[in-house]
């Protein structure tokens, strides 16, 4: 119970921090920012990895593998695509 409360605590504070972090974003960054934060939501990979416990049942393992695959797609694809977008700004029309 206590643990959960602490986690809830963390959750609440992190929400506030998330709100404060993003203040005013120029329009050309909307998509990259969305994409970049989408990549962070791939953090679920940590959960997916943890799910692949060797003492898990077969189906759970199967689900776990799928979870790892999808989470990894999100992480790898997300970061790379964001990086490509941002890389193009250098040569982009503005600045």
């Amino acid at each position, binding site marked *: 119970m206590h643990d959960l409360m602490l986690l809830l605590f963390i959750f609440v504070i992190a929400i506030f921090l998330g709100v404060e972090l*993003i203040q005013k*974003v120029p329009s050309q960054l909307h998509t990259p920012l969305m994409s970049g934060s*989408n990549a962070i939501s791939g*953090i679920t990979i940590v959960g997916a990895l943890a799910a692949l416990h060797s003492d898990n049942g077969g189906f759970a393992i199967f689900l776990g593998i799928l979870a790892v695959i999808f989470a990894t*797609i999100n992480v790898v694809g997300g970061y790379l695509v964001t990086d490509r977008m941002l890389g193009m700004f250098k040569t982009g029309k503005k600045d």
Partner: protein
Amino acid sequence: MDLLINLSYIAASVLFIYGLKMLGKPATARRGNQVSAIGMLVAAVATLLYSGLSYGWIVLGLVIGAGIGYYAARTVQMTQMPEMVALFNGSGGLASLLVAAAEYLRRPEADAFTALVIFLAIVVGGLTFTGSVIAFAKLSERMKGSPILFKNQQILNAGLLGLTLLMGIIFMFAPKAAGFLLVFIILAAFALGVLAVIPIGGADMPIVVSLLNSYSGIAASMAGFIIANNVLIVAGALVGASGIILTSIMCKAMNRSLTNVLFGGFGATTTQSSMQIQGEAKAISAEDAYYILENASNVIVVPGYGMAVAQAQHVVKELADLMEKNGTEVRYAIHPVAGRMPGHMNVLLAEANVPYEQLVEPEDVNPTMENVDVAIVIGANDVVNPAAKEDDTSPLYGMPIIETDRARTVFVLKRSMKPGFSGVENPLFFKENTRMLFGDAKSSLSTLVSEFKDAA
């Protein structure tokens, strides 16, 4: 080992925080993304330190996922990036759903709280998944972009949502016994995702993707609660919260409200019929106006007597300069009778050093008014009064005006709804595409200027 893992998680969270912050600024965005990627690496590697993991399967999953992700990210065309992001986002949501399901299988005798978060992770993850897939389909034109509407849609949605919540409550109190419900919950979540996105028009898709991105963060956070993993909770919450903020920023930039986007499809057919009868003038705040200007590529400024009264000529020039620096084309449309003496506007604009080349006459600007993203009417009134064209009983009838009413969006900066010199009511204020920015023109413009500067 645990200590190391936990410290790594703290480090990863800090990296995410920095990364997100940096992503919001043009100068640091790319490095921010890299910082956050390092955070992800740290978190993932730390997780591998847990004892008892099946590394074989892990490697298999990682290799397949990384391969697909890498391939997709490398080969996607620049123009297709938004839909690709949607797809990635969907897979993140699905992963959270799978994590929840797997955890449930491992410990079906969960307590109520864990059951609750399992339920939430599955519902949010599931609807993120299908919603993202639909968004992808609409963006990539695999599906038609226009809103898909049918009768009783709202009732269906509400019913399904209610049913899902009901199943959730049951599941929460008897997680083990009601395990079979999970299958239905998953299906319901999938259906909800589809139903939520199909009525939304293609143009609003980026906003939807951003919202779904926020959801996938929440899903990850819920998954974090299931396995009591703090980095998951923190990163998920960060994404969830910042995603909502980003979504609302994007809404403002498109001059939409979030409810409008989400439920706009439903209203679409009815709003159109709202009549010419002068309805209500819609006010806008300078901040919201900024988001629209920031996105405009073609702006005309229409100064009038009010600009002179407010002595706002210098700020007008400053704003125009900032917009030009932002890549927007800005012109000043000067109506011959604007102000209170011939050449009134010229005197003021010359004082503010507006180059003569940027001044255009109504005849020149009216024909292309449809291409004007925003017309900013600064303390002008009679000279933009559409009654001069439309209403042959108006004393202004027949006078050529600057037809700002035909621009995509019109901002009218004045202090009240009072008429101008001629005393004639102005129907422009009540048009669909008009927004009133009330207040002294100089102070409204100053606010816009500082919004622009803040963003830089």
